[in-house]
């Protein structure tokens, strides 16, 4: 009986603690990761990627708007939230791509340092 109570307590506490407390930033980050995964996916055709990216872009745009307009995150923002707003171009990919009139993939690659200039200036060496 005591063991049963102990097990129940552990299970209940696990359920309570694991309840999703989704932050708008977290949801956005999940969708962003999916989109980037889609951009880097070699297993699908160009046409398929374009089609799926279009849908993903719309969802990402909605989530970006929701995050930017979310007033709840102003109170005690966590480290991730602060960092996300510090790097606008990297966080809000759709907004940034529309602002700079460049595709999402280009914006993301540029921001992480993969620019054409950088790639052109590299050379193959043997160590």
């Amino acid at each position, binding site marked *: 009986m005591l063991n049963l109570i102990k097990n129940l307590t552990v299970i209940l506490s696990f359920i309570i603690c694991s309840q999703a407390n989704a932050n708008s930033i977290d949801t956005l980050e999940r969708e962003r990761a999916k989109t980037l995964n889609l951009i880097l996916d070699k297993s699908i055709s160009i046409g398929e990627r374009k089609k799926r990216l*279009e*849908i993903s872009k*719309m*969802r990402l*745009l*909605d989530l*970006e*708007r*929701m995050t*930017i*307009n979310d007033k709840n*995150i*102003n109170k005690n*923002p966590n480290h991730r*939230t*602060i960092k996300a*707003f*510090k790097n*606008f171009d990297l966080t*809000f990919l759709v*907004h940034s791509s*529309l*602002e700079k009139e460049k595709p999402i993939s280009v914006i993301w690659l540029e921001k992480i340092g993969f620019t054409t200039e950088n790639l052109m200036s590299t050379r193959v060496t043997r160590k």
Partner: protein
Amino acid sequence: MKNINLRFILIIITGFFYSVASFANNSLGEWKPQIVEKMYLLPPKHLNKVLNNDFNKSILALNLQTADNKIKDRIEKISELNSMLKGASKNEALEIKHQIIINKRDYIKDMSNLLTMKRQKLDTKKSFFQKIQKNIRNTSLNRKTNSEFLNNKKNALKRAESIDFKILDSTSHSLSKTSKYFKQYQLNKNAVKKLKLAIQKHPMSNKNILSKDPKNKMEAVKNYVHNIDTEISVLEMKEEMINYMAKIVALDAMSLAEEVAFDAQNQNEIVSTNYNDPVNVISVFTN
């Protein structure tokens, strides 16, 4: 055992004082501002108005009004009695003076109650404004710590709003693919823009410019607290005045008592002759 007794006595004594204090508080009425937290956002001038309206609904305000009326009645009665004093006979004058002293004593009692109630009102008002000061301080402190993040967020919002038309252009060819949120967002954003414009154009909005800045709001609230402090110090002076009035009434009462005693002595001297003295009974023997 001694310690237990001492503790017991201490509990009784503190309990007695507590009950006396609460009795005094209830007899004069109470005022606990029933103001919603959102009201704190109001400009200080409006907040003061709301606070005054809230006070007017309280029991304390009602008691204050009653005490005020009572005092007016007493003053009228005292001046009426004073006017009657001129044409009165000696005995009547003594009675009128007695009535005047009684009314003066009651006036002092009522006035003292009135001042206590006014003090209570000002103290409550002061603590309310001090609470607001504390809130403003806390908010500005939070703002300072989050200022970098808030700036970034503000910039993000600006950038997002500036490309709203671009978003509309780019999605116009594929509007069927847009989500429900997208359509609602556009509609609501336009409505919010219209409302913001209306707020900007509103005549009262310009008047509140000063209160929107936390520094100015703090300054305005500080001014209110300062005014309340001055009112409290004026009340203290009035309390001192009441003390002097009470002393005068006490002296008047003493002089009246002496006057009455002196008259009674005189009357006694006239009516009753001392037969124990042989000089006073000579006539009895000579006639």
